């Protein structure tokens, strides 16, 4: 399959951060991803779209090896190479924990831990063995600021994360993912459980975040993909149908299948 890279597509200064190469994935006997290839560009937002069951979430969860948590899942071919160190994230000798420390994730439903707001934001740091109170305080504050939550919660850091509103909880989960300075943050339909106002604030946040980090987002909302992403990939039945600069995918798709999906004739 001919894939365009960002450079070819003409976004200036786009540098490759990761590269999915002919990736195959199996849930037991089910072939969920079929020779999928796509580039991820540094400090850009890349979105994955497609009808439910097309494999977009499966692909996302390959990036931080979440599939390793369940028996029967198999990375059955190809790989994901992370730059600049050229590591294949899916290689058996690469520790999934190491991958997850470098590539963090935000989930569909906000899932704050049953802990205080502070401890939620400090979670990654504690997992990395950080003990110094001052350093933790600083990092938590900057993570909460980075997630545009600091102003709302600075006075009640000891409260349970679950006491926040849905949108705030999701921003807390973003702060949690942000705290340890990951290289990539994966978003798995982060706004599908939120109301329109909360959704708007999360979208705004994602656009701001690409200053700091590379973003890969799965969304079932095409307008959302159009609004926030620099690159868009359309998947169908476990295959990568088309990848390109977002404007191009939405205005002038190369493939008929993509066009049908985008224009709502299918899906």
């Amino acid at each position, binding site marked *: 399959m001919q894939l365009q890279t960002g450079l070819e597509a003409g976004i200036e200064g786009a540098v490759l951060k990761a590269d999915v190469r002919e990736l195959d994935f199996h849930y037991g006997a089910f072939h969920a991803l079929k020779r999928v290839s796509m580039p991820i560009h540094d400090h850009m937002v890349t979105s994955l779209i497609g009808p439910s069951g097309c494999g977009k979430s499966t692909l996302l969860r390959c990036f931080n090896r*979440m599939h390793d948590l369940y028996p029967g899942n198999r990375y059955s071919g190809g790989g994901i190479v992370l730059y600049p160190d050229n590591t294949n994230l899916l290689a058996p000798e690469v520790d999934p924990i190491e991958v997850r*420390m470098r590539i963090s994730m935000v989930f569909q439903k906000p*899932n704050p*831990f049953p802990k205080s707001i502070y401890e939620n934001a400090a979670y990654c740091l*504690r*997992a990395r063995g950080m003990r110094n109170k001052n350093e933790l305080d600083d990092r938590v504050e900057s993570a909460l600021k980075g997630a545009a939550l600091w102003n709302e919660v600075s006075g009640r850091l000891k409260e349970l994360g679950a006491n926040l509103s849905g949108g705030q909880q999701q921003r807390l989960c973003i702060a949690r*993912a942000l705290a340890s300075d990951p290289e990539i943050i994966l978003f798995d339909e982060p706004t599908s459980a939120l109301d329109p106002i909360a959704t708007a604030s999360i979208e705004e946040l994602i656009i701001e975040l690409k200053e700091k980090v590379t973003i890969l987002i799965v969304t079932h909302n095409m307008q959302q993909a159009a609004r926030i992403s620099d690159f868009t990939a359309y998947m169908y039945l476990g295959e990568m149908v088309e990848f390109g600069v977002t404007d191009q995918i939405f205005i002038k798709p190369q493939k008929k299948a993509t066009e049908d999906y985008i224009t709502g004739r299918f899906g």
Partner: protein
Amino acid sequence: MSASASEPSLSAPIGTGVSDRLSKKASRHVKERIIEALLFSAAAFSVFVTVAIVYVLVKESWIFFQTVPITDFLFDTQWTPLFDDAHYGIMVLLSGTLTSSGVALLVAIPLGTIIALYLSEFAGFKVREIAKPFLELLGGVPTIVYGYFALTFLTPILQKVYPDLPGFNLLSAGLVMGIMIIPYVASLSEDAMRAVPMALREGSYAMGATRLQTALWVVTPAATSGIASAYILGISRAVGETMILAVAAGMQPNLTFNPTEPGATITSNIVQVALGDLPHGSIGYQTIFAAGLTLLLMTLAFNLLGYWLRKRFREVY
């Protein structure tokens, strides 16, 4: 003569047929009501059991407290109801109960919690499938058998390490009781941990946490109330356990908190009194009801505490 009901004619009001069907429906209705009433009385029977327990214990204890002042019962430091110089200090039996339960919980709570965490967060599917039924079997062994084991196997071994240990002692009984309670603590805690939604675990793993970090920092706090009620069940089992103590701790009333001494608990004392042939209505007969009431109040307190904990710390997923 009008048309008979069995032969509705066109001229007859349609009502005959309908009321016929209605009456059949009514009888069906009556049958349903009777069945429902029967089933309800079966369910309500459980309330009757509780009322009966309270009634019997309070009634006999009431007579007991007519003879023995409640202050003596609470503060006397001897328990010799069958002696000429009778003393009724429940404290003596309570000390045995607390000491043996303490030993048992020191075994059951750490081991039960570790097993629960291991099975729920670390072990593979196969290990869990084998270990869970095995734990059930462990909990299903009759306690008299555990008592036999404590007396004839564990005590001689402990005596090798600690030669001054008497043949009957609270330590050996307590240790075996702890093993007996492990399945209750482990299985209930594990249920609580497994009820923690996968989304929380995924959240933790996605942040690069290890299994142990996820288990201790996310799963355990999320399952706190369930784990706490597992502990409370364990405590209430320990306090109510009878035969292990009756066999291995030697039923001598002994005001002590030293597990290496023999001692009687509330429960083993009831067994001892019941084994003797006490006449119905004697003060000796009534002591076991007073002791039983104390036991009931203790377990009731634990049950309420468990109930309150579950309500207070409703799992916040």
